[in-house]
């Protein structure tokens, strides 16, 4: 059953569609270029988890991110790949991993300048902050890159930094929409206002991440080290007197 396309409530599909279109418009208005694989959005939702969940997978490639540090002969591109899982009973998000590969492009070569992913799993993972960002040195698979129209010669850094592999930084609840939102703010600041206004109403229609342990922890106490909340799923619930 897994892997079969599945029809979603129109509100859920539209939320993804409208957000991605708003992002596309923001990039294009700002002078960037964006390409998607030749896979329409309806085919990005497939059954998973014995039919109880829906897997969502989407890649996109943004060229010409403004970057002052780069010389005129180079440009900054980013490829984003999102893999999310939505439960069919409540249409909430149970899993989200968003990979980003930043490339410095010179002529036909693209040097992987930074690879990272944002990660979240309902219920948390042992040793991992609930929502976290992990710096890595791994490129998004070549097949995914090519499907977005990425046809450059990929260069990997000469010396992989092994330390990156273990660095997991706690983050707010970051999903595909949050990552794209930050990308616009970060790289297309002059166009962020209209974009933010446009996507505001979409936020509530998007599947919301399910993270009860973190919510309870935050509500429970705010007097200790804040980072402990991001490991709330690993701790015993606080016993309240009476």
């Amino acid at each position, binding site marked *: 059953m897994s892997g079969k396309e599945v029809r979603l*409530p129109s509100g859920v599909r539209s939320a993804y569609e409208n957000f991605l279109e708003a992002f596309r418009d923001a990039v294009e208005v700002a002078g960037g270029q964006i390409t998607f694989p030749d896979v329409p959005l*309806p085919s990005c939702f497939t059954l998973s988890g014995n039919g109880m969940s829906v897997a969502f997978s989407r890649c996109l490639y943004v060229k010409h991110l403004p970057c002052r540090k780069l010389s005129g002969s180079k440009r900054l591109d980013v490829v984003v790949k999102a893999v999310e899982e939505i439960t069919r009973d409540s249409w909430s998000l149970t899993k989200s991993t968003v990979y980003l590969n930043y490339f410095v492009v010179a002529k036909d070569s693209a040097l992987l300048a930074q690879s990272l992913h944002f990660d979240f799993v309902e219920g948390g993972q042992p040793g991992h902050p609930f929502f976290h960002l992990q710096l890595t040195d791994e490129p998004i698979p070549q097949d995914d890159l090519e499907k977005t129209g990425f046809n450059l010669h990929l260069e990997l850094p000469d010396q992989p930094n092994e330390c990156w592999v273990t660095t997991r930084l706690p983050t707010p609840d970051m999903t595909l929409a949050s990552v794209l939102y930050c990308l616009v703010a970060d790289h297309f600041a002059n166009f962020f206002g209209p974009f933010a206004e446009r996507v505001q109403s979409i936020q509530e229609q998007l599947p919301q991440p399910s993270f009860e342990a973190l919510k309870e922890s935050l509500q429970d106490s705010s007097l200790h080290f804040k980072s402990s909340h991001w490991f709330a799923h690993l701790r015993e619930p606080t016993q309240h007197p009476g």
Partner: protein
Amino acid sequence: MAGKIKIVLFEDTEQTRSGLLEGLNEHLKDGEAISFGQSEESPEDMERMYQDRLESILSKAPYDEATMLVVDRDLSKSQNFGGLSDDTVAAAAKRLAIPICSYARQQAPDDYNWRARWEEGRIFLSFENDEELARKAVLAARGFAEIAGGLRGVMKDRARRSPARVLATLLGKPEYSDKIALYSVGDQTRLAEILAKDETDRVKRMECFLGYWLWDSLLRYPGLLVNEVAAASYLNIATVDFEKSEVRAVFAQALYGGPFADSKRPHWWRGMLDDIVSGENCSDGLELARKKVSSMINPSQCCEDPSKPAGYYCIISGQPVSLENSKGGFSWFPRGADLTRISKTKFDEYGPWLGV
């Protein structure tokens, strides 16, 4: 609905004219069809270009306030207008912002049927018989009248003035305005039309613009709305099984009922199909149809490889097609038409020109 519908028929053959006029009036219970004929013109007027003369005549009684012109492609035998063609009438109609619907009555000229499928900014009706031609022409006129009737109220609200919002409100689906807006991206023809509008007849031009947009784009390219083949393909139901009334009944709530809705060639709101399927906790329309109607309902078949389910619609062949055996994302597709594809065979046939 706006006031009385008035259709002006341009037909240069007497026998055909009377038959068609009768057919149009039979279908037009809430209006009248009149024939374009003799007009009082001075000798000086008759020296002017056909386009100018037609514009002048159509502005006066009994032809003024026409809802739509129904025009034969070949009007060469017209009295006082020898060699007239539908293109000249269309040019005059465009100046007056009157919708126009052309037909070619003689047996199936291929180029004309092709135009009926592809051309924009005018309605082309392919010919089957006089009765069907009259029915389709009245349906088109009624669609424009419906838009005209709703538009004046909608235009009062400045916040709704983007064409997509206006059309979404007219269709009773304000929630789809973002999707409708995706049908305008990259369409320079229509942009020119909007920019050319003047204040005095702005609403009238909007009626024409919105009608053609709906007919040429939203109803033609599956995405927001789906025709019979595209609906069956998207639902993963065999086209022949989707023709069965008991199967259609399952999805009846999603039937499109707005301007130009045609019970013989229906469309469905794709989002409403999604809601019907997911509301029953089914993964696709096939699962739902098997549950509600019969386990013998067959899945859709890709026109390139029948072993694969379809899901999409080839705009050239009009067949269901799978993602793997088709190409999409052409710049000339409306961006909202995400179920519209071109099958591999057709793509290979027409080659790189499709990508222009």
